[in-house]
């Protein structure tokens, strides 16, 4: 059962969810920037390098979507522990797209930061 909460809190949560959702694609591409990773490594990278807590059931479908869009490619690699892992790596198109998205993000966040600076001061 969901606890009933004030409407403002509810809508702030919704906003945060949308915000995080919008960043997930870029976060995954960024996690792959330095080299190939398999699904669970991507999840762990997102959790350790950022405080983004990601639901597992969302990352795998998103990875297969990025693959069809040609931004990542995948290959199966046999692991020491005996089961194969599906590794993902950025394609040249994926690298270019991540750079573009990163640049957009930097521009956007620096203007937002300027705008928000007065609000952050206590």
């Amino acid at each position, binding site marked *: 059962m969901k606890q009933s909460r004030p409407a403002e809190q509810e809508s702030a949560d919704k906003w945060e969810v949308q915000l995080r959702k919008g960043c997930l694609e870029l976060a995954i591409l960024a996690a792959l920037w330095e080299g190939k990773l398999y699904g669970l490594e991507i999840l762990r990278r997102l959790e350790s390098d950022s405080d983004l807590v990601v639901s597992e059931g969302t990352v795998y479908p998103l990875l*297969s979507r990025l693959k069809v869009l040609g931004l990542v490619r995948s290959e199966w690699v046999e692991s020491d522990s005996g089961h194969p892992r599906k590794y993902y790596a950025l394609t040249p198109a994926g690298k270019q797209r991540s750079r573009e998205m990163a640049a957009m993000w930097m521009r956007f966040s620096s203007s937002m930061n300027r705008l928000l600076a007065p609000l952050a001061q206590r």
Partner: protein
Amino acid sequence: MTTPDSQQKVDAYLEKLRRLLRGMNPEDAREIIEELRSHITEKTAVSGQLTAAAVSAALSELGTPEELAGQYTTDDLLMRAEVSRSPVRILESLFRWASLSVAGFFVLLGSIVGYFLGGAFMWCAVLKLIHPQTAGLWLLADGPGVTRLSLRMGFGSPPLGGRDLLGWWIVPVGLVAGCGLVMLTTRLALWCARQYRKSLALPWG
């Protein structure tokens, strides 16, 4: 090693997902299942104890097979649409979505009606060029004071007491209305798919 019970649970989960992904490219579906199997194996191995609890935790973090299949399916639909807006492709994905949820079923139903009407208008426009006497948008008199509009696409003889409302105008009007209906249906179906996608398991936390 995993206890037989837990292994059965994983197999049942993946089998259910496999059935829900049926209709997708078989190779893609197989890869999805194998990738998730690998994920679950590693997830439960890391937790040290291969208990029923570890397996349950790993599965619940992935979401239900229906939720997962819903994400793969609607992603697939939206992606196909980004690559090609072919109604056939879209209907194909909608059939799969319809097997997963009531929402999908109604979107499929609406889309079939939309595409059918769109197709009928275009067909009528083309047929007018071949059979100008019978094709077109006709106002038919069924009886005294009873009239109905009919999009005539047949070959037979021109209907008695009927009036061809648009004449040659059915050609441009039919083509525009037909294309418009097809595009509108596609957009509406994609919009519904996006809304559904949003309503599925929150991506974070």
